[in-house]
């Protein structure tokens, strides 16, 4: 048997992420030019500098950061890329800021599909365009197989704070109405039902969406919204508890008012999980003076992510720091902060 000599020429066309893609050499450049730049390019990124130099308008600047490690990275209704853009856009917007510029840092696992990476980058670009923000600086690192789960993304963002905004979680006042912008638990249950090991079919899709234009419209009509939060991890229950705790007021909500999609409710029933504890990625909880509540609901309903907006309760003097639900039967119970991981029950 003879072995033909093979010239070990460098392979630049890979189907998966290699360690060298993060090493700053030729493969790093290939990754930039073939995967990232075609979708993300803009006047800032095209300069290929180590930093973006931004002209910020006068006034206060809001700055936030968040890291996305969702598994699976593709889920019904979205993927980790658009989640990373929309999440940071929303974190700026709920503070009354107009989101403007984002950074994106990627940690890629060796062996991750380049086709999937490109799909993620492409949807980040689309999400950024849709939200009216620019991704102006970025970074990519590659770690060995098994050292991260496919892809982790960090996004940071800056935006300018609207003048006259007094949004704060310490601003709730007895008598305020509590408004929820739509159905609860969609994102968390979309993730949970698409995970391995949970083999039931469902059509639950994540509510992942940028909310900045809806929020701006609300603040145009009612600048004096007292507080606004996006109820992500921990769900509406965690958000309401944070608001009640920060403002040292009680919150009462009405069980029958909480909108839950039937398939989300079904999955929650099956797993023994309270939809109020399940994450959302395209919803808002607002506290507004009761006189303004009708107007706010009307504005929210004119946007797709807010079409099911509804008043779910009010702020009260009693039981400061505590959230209480009036049940459909007229009894009352505490809505507590979820402890941690949601654990399915035994039977």
């Amino acid at each position, binding site marked *: 048997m003879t072995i033909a000599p093979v010239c070990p020429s460098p392979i630049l066309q890979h189907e998966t992420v290699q360690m060298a893609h993060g090493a700053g050499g030729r493969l790093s450049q290939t990754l930039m030019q073939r995967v990232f730049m075609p979708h993300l390019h803009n006047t800032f990124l095209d300069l290929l500098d180590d930093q973006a130099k931004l002209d910020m308008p006068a006034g206060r600047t809001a700055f936030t950061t968040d890291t996305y490690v969702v598994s699976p990275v593709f889920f019904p209704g979205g993927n980790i890329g658009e989640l990373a853009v929309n999440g940071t856009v929303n974190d700026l917007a709920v503070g009354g800021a107009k989101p403007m510029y984002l950074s994106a840092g990627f940690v890629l696992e060796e062996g991750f599909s380049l086709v999937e990476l490109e799909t993620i980058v492409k949807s980040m670009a689309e999400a950024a365009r849709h939200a009216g923000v620019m991704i102006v600086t970025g970074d990519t690192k590659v770690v060995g197989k098994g050292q991260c789960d496919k892809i982790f993304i960090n996004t940071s963002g800056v935006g300018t704070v609207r003048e006259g905004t007094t949004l704060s979680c310490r601003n709730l006042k007895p008598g305020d109405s509590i408004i929820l912008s739509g159905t609860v638990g969609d994102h968390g249950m979309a993730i949970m039902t698409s995970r391995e*090991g*949970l083999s039931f079919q469902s059509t639950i899709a994540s509510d992942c969406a940028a909310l900045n234009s809806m929020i701006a419209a609300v603040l145009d009509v009612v600048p004096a919204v007292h507080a606004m939060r996006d109820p992500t991890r921990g769900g509406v229950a965690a958000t309401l508890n944070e608001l009640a705790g920060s403002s040292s007021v009680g919150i009462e909500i009405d069980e029958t008012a909480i909108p839950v999609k*039937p398939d989300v*409710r*079904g999955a929650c*029933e099956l797993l*023994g999980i309270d939809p109020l504890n399940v994450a959302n990625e395209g919803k808002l909880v607002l506290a507004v003076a009761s006189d303004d509540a009708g107007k706010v609901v009307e504005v929210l309903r004119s946007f797709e992510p807010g079409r099911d907006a509804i008043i779910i309760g009010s702020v009260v003097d*009693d*039981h400061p720091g*505590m959230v209480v639900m009036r*049940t*459909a*039967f*007229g*009894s*009352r*119970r*505490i809505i*507590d902060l979820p*402890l941690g991981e949601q*654990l*399915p*029950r*035994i*039977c």
Partner: protein
Amino acid sequence: MKYIDEYRNPQLARNLLDKIRQTTTRHWTIMEICGGQTHSILRNGIDQLLPDTIELVHGPGCPVCVTPLESIERALIIASRKDVIFTSFGDMLRVPGSSKDLFMIRSEGGDVRIVFSPLDALQIARDNPLKEVVFFAVGFETTAPANAMAVYQAAREGIRNFSVIVSQVMVPPAMRAILSSPDNLVQGFLAAGHVCAIMGYAEYEPVALDFHVPIVPTGFEPVDLLAGILKTVELLEEGRAEVVNRYGRVVSREGNLVAQETISKVFEVTDRQWRGIGLIPGSGLGLRDEFSQYDAEKKFNVTHICTAESPLCMSGSVLQGMLKPDGCPAFARECTPEHPLGATMVSSEGACAAYYNYHRNVYPL
């Protein structure tokens, strides 16, 4: 949602509450057996809606709560082994052993996985032939058929890298133990609907006769629970110690015969320790000799297990209906879901967890 909304109908609930008020002439103490019922009662505030004369006390029907500390310690030791994939119902992961729980073992590098069915654990064993896959087979009669089926299938397929830690318990012997106690307060029972779905309710008839108590198999939704309470009160008021089924859409007198057959193929009746309560004769199920190679206790031969319960924890009294969770001096003080002293504070079927989650810091409701 079909089969749920009609059992959460506020008008039906109000009608049943009215009937309970009209029927009750004196104080009655009723125990709901199952922790799932306890949570539904507290979650829906049914205890707040009942007349003061009807007192609900909470029973031992929380599988992870009664799993003996020694079994948990054994699980923690086995789950730490490098050659083991440890599988469990999610509820078990937060249950405190003497110093750790399964979450801590996982954070230390143990391969601990949540499964929804023991058959999923068996699949993990098929997929990982070089690993030992261990399933924590806890539960009442409800989980017994699926747990038995996993062992039975493993034997049939000759899968050798699968084993189970068995802590399988049964309701009727526990009811007898509660009723035999000199401190017993319970006058009537809501039997656990899901247990009865498997076992039927004929086996409760001798208990009702021997101890002269009414027993009513009951479901878990508010309307189910109120219908069960109403029937129990009616039987108590009439002095009738009978078993009357109020979960007809799920429970029959003879139960699920196929499931019962599966249980008895694989398991046999044994004495069993109950955490916080002690040894109850004939109250457990253990693997039959022919399945002993699937017994993780034997396979891993873990010895020198040291157990230490918190001296403050009164979960034994809570599980027997002698103490309400908020009557325990450690409740919401030394003992919280973040720092539980006993399993009743962390299980989704534990009475202490239900009180903590829904009724803590009781103020005028």
